[in-house]
């Protein structure tokens, strides 16, 4: 199969381009931090890119599911104080697994309700999707406030995941390594499902031509619901990791991330999981590199990166073909 080498080489070139501007240990620290942030962003963006790619649905309410995942994690972590305080790796991973499982279940079910009540009525109309999902986001944020209160809720990082390890002279936070591992695992799972299973085949075909998938006898509407649930659950996973990483959860924790999430979707190519993966790491790296080299430019650096990539590839790095 023909490979798109310029787009695939962009990430390694970007990594190497930053190296001359800092010491190796600083570069390694920033690179791992950037990759960890990128992986958490990928978790949040992957669901949205699937939803857009297959369903052609733009949902601004995605941020609410990120927030919901983070809030669920606050309750789960608070309910396991002894395990959180334990320095055992097994206890720390158990806390994380419990928070992730609860978040996946609750955001998945909430996503299913959201699809049935709201999204199903606005298929095929981007303007109505934007209007109704912005409204849905406001309602969801208020519901979060009603359930968890308006004050920020602290969330403790399991003791075993606190602190750093020194690798090649660089200090690297343990939690960031866990985030990288989780993000990679999710990416590999998504790619395996998309490339090796019949369900994945249907999703990839549906992204291109929904009508033809239906004409082959597949009920795409059911696939829409399944993909939307998975998308919301992935947002919840991202919310758990981001919430624990930040240490403080507010109703705005999800919506605040949506600008970066949309930058990732646009840069990667709307609907492309692989594109979202590369773009998320690029955004994470850019945030960390520019924060170190030119802190005043850090805020706008990702916008500049997106503009440059869109000037080069107007449809993103790995655009999907729709017919």
């Amino acid at each position, binding site marked *: *199969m*023909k490979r798109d080498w310029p787009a695939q080489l962009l990430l390694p070139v970007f990594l190497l381009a930053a190296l001359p501007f800092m010491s190796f240990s600083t570069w390694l620290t920033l690179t791992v931090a950037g990759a960890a942030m990128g992986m958490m962003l990928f978790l949040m963006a992957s669901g949205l890119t699937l939803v857009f790619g297959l369903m052609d649905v733009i949902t601004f309410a995605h941020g609410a599911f990120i927030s919901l995942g983070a809030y669920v994690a606050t309750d789960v972590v608070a309910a396991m104080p002894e395990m959180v305080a334990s320095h055992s790796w097994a206890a720390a991973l158990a806390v994380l697994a419990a928070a992730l499982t609860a978040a996946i279940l609750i955001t998945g079910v909430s996503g299913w309700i959201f699809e049935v009540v709201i999204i199903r009525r606005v298929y095929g109309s981007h303007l109505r999707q934007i209007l109704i999902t912005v409204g849905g986001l406001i309602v969801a944020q208020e519901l979060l406030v009603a359930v968890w209160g308006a004050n920020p809720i602290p969330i403790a990082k399991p003791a075993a995941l606190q602190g750093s390890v020194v690798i090649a002279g660089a200090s690297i936070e343990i939690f960031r390594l866990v985030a990288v591992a989780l993000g990679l695992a999710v990416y590999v799972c998504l790619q395996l499902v998309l490339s090796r299973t019949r369900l994945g085949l249907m999703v*990839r075909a549906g992204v291109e*031509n929904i009508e033809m*998938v239906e*004409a082959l*006898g597949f009920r795409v509407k059911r696939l829409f619901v399944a993909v939307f649930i998975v998308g919301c659950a992935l947002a919840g996973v991202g919310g758990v990791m981001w919430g624990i990483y930040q240490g403080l959860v507010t109703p705005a924790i999800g919506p605040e991330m949506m600008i970066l999430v949309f930058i990732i979707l646009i840069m990667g190519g709307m609907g492309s999981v692989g594109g979202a993966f590369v773009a998320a790491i690029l955004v994470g790296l850019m945030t960390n590199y520019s924060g170190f080299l030119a802190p005043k430019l850090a805020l706008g650096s990702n916008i500049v990166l997106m503009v440059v990539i869109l000037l080069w590839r107007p449809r993103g790095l790995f655009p999907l073909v729709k017919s």
Partner: protein
Amino acid sequence: MDELLKLSGVVTHIGSYHILHGVDLSVRRGRVTMLLGRNGAGKTTTLRSIMGLWKPRAGSIVFDGTPIGTLDTPDIARLGIAYVPETMGIFSQLTVGENMKLAATTARFNAARLDDVFRFFPILKTKWNDRAGLMSGGQKQMLAVARAIVENRRLMIIDEPTKGLAPAVIDQLIACLLELKARDTTILLVEQNFHMAQSVGDDVAVMDNGRVVHTGTMAALARDTELQTRLLGLSLAAHQ
């Protein structure tokens, strides 16, 4: 011979456009029915209405005794109807093999049918692992037809398969359809190419302005150039 598919008074709108004004059409079991007509006569809309891709507002569509006019497209396809659209409907980002896998109803191919596909279109075996979007127009059309025949279907609906194809590819498609016809496969075929229409057609229905205005045998229409000119605007030979 009995009717496998029967349309009675089918009326279809696309948005504010009234396209089909009461289509009556019969497709007999084991026969190849050609649906002919000028551009814009409503042929593609008729096929899409049968597949449920555009819902008829009135009339009935009955497939082997089952009313299908209100069914969703996947349910219609699951009755054993294969559809090859004018645009071919190839998934260009998927490989040839993946396109074929999606067309099979089970995870495993029927080996004999797959052998048939490779015998009709050997190029698909060669390009099995290549991305479908990288193939030529003719190869894509072969893949589109191959998807429809990879399993035994009760009815094949094919929309202008020869459009824009080279003569050698058209001959391959004709050979394929003739063999399917010899196996009593029921086919509803929209086609502008006279050579193909005459080669494979048993029955014919001619559409004009959203209605079927003539039905009969393909052989009779092929013989009657005056009728061709009246129904189609020019003789079938001129369509070649």
